[in-house]
């Protein structure tokens, strides 16, 4: 699959920032996987490796002083793209008091109310109505802005998705529903369990415009998201993006991903969103190999420092057990 990147439409800093953010997510996730292997991180840990262009490209289109993000348990990438501190995120994965959720949420429940990163939700599809409710509040208050609601292909058959799209259209809510179609709901290929192959068409059941987007092309993601976001900002109307992507790792750290072939994985590695973008940037003379390597090294360094911070941080005290149950 050949891709074109509209590099010359953008300024150099913007392009390099996209590259940096994707590389940071990649290196952060590799580090998280490594620390999971060392049993520093427990429970369910869902890595974002392979999907970086989705969160980075789409969140780059948002203004988080007014817009909101809600996502699934595969939330590290979105949290980083929202500008959350890698140290605070790694500390949360470690369950430390310095984590964004004071160690009570873990990998699946990253939140930053100030940055409008509204989670980090663990039940498949359950946050889609929440995101719709945040959009209701924006409309009620007459605010300009949009809610970006991310979920996987596994969520698209949940009633909560269909109920939400219906209400968003009936009430004209400013929200972009984003299906990150990484092609497997846990270990099940969507082709085995979905009567619809092109999810973007499902928006039309509710009168919501849908579009299929190449999730390996960060600029295409940005451009399509920008259109949807602008529409919400200007008209307050909902839209739906199916962003086709791929995760290199299993569903979670405990999944060896035996349901797919080596060849399939290799094929997607050749379409790596970071390497494709890097090649395009080099071709256009935006970066050279040395600069790329420097960015990569810096990302590794940031990830290492995040681990150091998490290691050095304290566990929550036992008194925290009964804190923050009620306001």
């Amino acid at each position, binding site marked *: 699959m050949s891709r074109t990147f509209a590099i010359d439409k953008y300024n150099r800093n913007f392009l390099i920032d996209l590259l940096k953010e994707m590389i940071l997510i990649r290196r952060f996730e590799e580090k998280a996987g490594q620390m999971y292997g060392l049993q520093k991180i427990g429970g369910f840990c869902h890595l974002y490796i392979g999907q970086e262009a989705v969160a980075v490209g789409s969140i780059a289109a948002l203004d988080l002083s007014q817009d909101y993000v809600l996502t699934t348990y595969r939330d590290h990438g979105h949290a980083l793209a929202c500008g959350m501190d890698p140290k605070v995120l790694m500390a949360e994965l470690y369950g430390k008091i310095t984590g964004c959720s004071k160690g009570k949420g873990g990998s699946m429940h990253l939140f930053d109310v100030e940055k409008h990163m509204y989670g980090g939700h663990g039940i498949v599809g*359950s946050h*889609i*109505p929440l995101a719709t409710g945040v959009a*209701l*509040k924006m409309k009620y208050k007459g605010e300009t802005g949009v809610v970006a609601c991310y979920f996987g292909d596994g969520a698209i058959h949940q009633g909560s998705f269909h109920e939400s799209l219906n209400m968003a259209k009936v009430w004209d809510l400013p929200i972009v529903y984003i299906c990150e179609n990484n092609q497997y709901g846990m270990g099940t290929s969507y082709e085995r369990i979905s009567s619809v192959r092109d999810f973007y068409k499902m928006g039309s059941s509710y009168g919501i415009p849908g579009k299929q987007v190449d999730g390996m092309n960060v600029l295409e993601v940005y451009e399509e998201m920008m259109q949807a976001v602008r529409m919400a900002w200007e008209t307050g109307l909902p839209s739906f993006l199916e962003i086709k992507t791929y995760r290199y790792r299993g569903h979670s750290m405990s999944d060896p991903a035996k349901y797919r072939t080596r060849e399939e994985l290799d094929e997607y590695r050749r379409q790596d969103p970071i390497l494709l973008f890097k090649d395009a940037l080099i071709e256009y003379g935006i970066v050279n190999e040395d600069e790329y390597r420097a960015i990569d090294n810096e990302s590794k360094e940031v990830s290492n420092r995040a681990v150091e911070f998490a290691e050095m941080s304290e566990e929550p005290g036992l008194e925290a057990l009964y804190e923050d149950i009620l306001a």
Partner: protein
Amino acid sequence: MPIITYRDALREAMDEEMARDENVILLGEEVAEYNGAYKVSQGLWDKYGSKRVIDTPITEEGFTGVGIGAAMAGLRPIVEWMTFNFSIMALDQVINNAAKMRYMSGGQFKVPIVFRGPNGPAEYLAAQHSQALQTLFVHIPGLKVVAPATPYDAKGLLKSAIRDDNPVIFLEGELMYQWKGEVPEGEYLIPIGKADIKREGKDVTILTYSKPLRVVEEAATELEKQGIEAEIVDLRTIRPMDEETIYRSVKKTNRCVVVDESWPMVSVASHVGWMVSRNCFDDLDAPVELVTGEDVPMPYNHRLELAAQPSVEKVINAVQKVMYLT
């Protein structure tokens, strides 16, 4: 003092709070143009319009979640479930989202939302439309659960629930909406978490809440004729529970009966019975007795459905048992 219905008391509470705070909205099935399936919201759509009184599709999970999301972002929604039977469709939203958002975000969110509607057995409605489901909610940390039995309590507690920064489950009852009682003009609040002694007595404590209060009051009148003075403690809030008032009463009367229209297994009644047994052990002259709904789905036949619920006779029998009169 004016005498109004339980339904009117609820409406007054919502009306006053909507007038007071523009962040308060009401959403649910038939709440707006239809004026509410049970007419609790009658007139509110005329007064506040479609922006604040919102008819939803029949999608309990969806609109419950919408309410929770709006609450996370700063509104104070009242979600009306047409009945609690349908709240089962929305349990994931309540249990996994409303109740846990604050905790799992390390205290970053408040979720100020009220879920209200009729709960408990009504008449001739059979198993799926006639059941007391409070146990499902009382079980969950992160929720408050309120169950007033009089118009006065209903109004004061609903206003407190709307102002509370936490998710509050507010249990009403189809058969209670017509109940009348004195409600003062002008504003008052009743704090969540405070029980109320509805009748003083020295011989036995009867703990109850919500619709069975009437049955218990009738039973107490009958018992009085037998020379037994029952003290009725109306819990009003079942999470958090007003343990102090419960124990004070039981330590005075030394006998306790719990009346709860829900099923007996792992219920409010069984929990309160355990609490009293444990904390008033030295003061009790008899084991705590429970009067609950029978452990069966609700039948349609009227004779059978009455037999499935707490009755005056069952309460009197339980009192006589703890007084060793049978």
